[in-house]
């Protein structure tokens, strides 16, 4: 059987360039797609199974899934994001068979690498952009690195991961990636969006 190519949902859409009208300081938002990424969802259905699963995942990856809702652990290879009760998303740039590694005896795992598009947004105005699009407290003293949140951003379900005070990863369902991109560029026009 022919090998299927990993193709970005934004291939041919995301073109480097400057959008909107930045002020004299330059673009307030920088945007890039992170691709290809490995994303694996792990889930359990009880405290007991969840505990065993987390133990096992910690043994495999060296990083324990965060117990606290709305937080993430790991520095990126991999990073584990809390996405719901007894549910986490394990994320890293594609380099190894993460889905294969994470077939724990306890719980369930599902490869979502093909199902999500990851955008990296940064810049001095990125929190202002989020304020326009999602009803969360985006103050730098509240939504700090290590926080993640799922919310409705520009009317779409988006998982936001704060990596640095002004750097965020946005996870969106693949089919909505193009729409989210357009809305982000539209909303960011007043700050200037540098796409790379």
């Amino acid at each position, binding site marked *: 059987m022919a090998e299927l190519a990993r193709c970005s949902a934004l291939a041919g859409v995301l073109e480097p360039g400057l959008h909107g009208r930045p002020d004299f300081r330059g673009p307030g938002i920088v945007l890039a797609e992170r691709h290809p990424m490995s994303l694996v969802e792990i889930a359990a259905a009880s405290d007991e199974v969840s505990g065993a699963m987390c133990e096992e995942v910690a043994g495999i990856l060296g990083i324990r899934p965060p117990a606290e*809702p*709305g937080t993430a652990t790991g520095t990126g290879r991999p990073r584990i994001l809390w*996405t*719901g*009760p007894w*549910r986490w998303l394990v994320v890293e740039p594609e380099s190894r068979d993460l889905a294969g590694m994470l077939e724990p005896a306890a719980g369930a795992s599902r490869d979502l690498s093909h199902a999500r598009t990851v955008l990296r947004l940064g810049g001095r105005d990125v929190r202002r952009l989020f304020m326009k699009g999602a*009803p*969360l407290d985006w103050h730098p003293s509240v939504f700090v690195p290590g926080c993640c*949140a*799922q*919310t*409705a951003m520009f009317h779409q*379900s988006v998982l936001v991961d704060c990596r640095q005070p002004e750097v965020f990863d946005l996870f969106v369902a693949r089919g909505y990636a193009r729409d989210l991109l357009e809305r982000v560029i539209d909303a960011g026009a007043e700050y200037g969006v540098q796409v790379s």
Partner: protein
Amino acid sequence: MIRITCPYCGPRDHQEFAYVGDATLTRPSDDAGADAWYDFVYLRDNPRGPHLEYWQHVHGCRAFVKVLRDTLTHEVLATGTAADDLVAGGR
């Protein structure tokens, strides 16, 4: 704008939630008969005041949330997980 405190995510705007339905109903047994099932599936009270209802945090953690909401003022009086027993007085 209603703010609903998700038991996992904390206070969030109601636009992240979907209304699911009346949380005061009890599912009848399978052999309860047509009348009981008709009542369960179709008939609802329309209370003025505190009402116990299910919401789902669809854009957040996807969890079902039990909400005690005043239908007159939209004030959210209590929230909890779907299994939680909120303050009596939903009806």
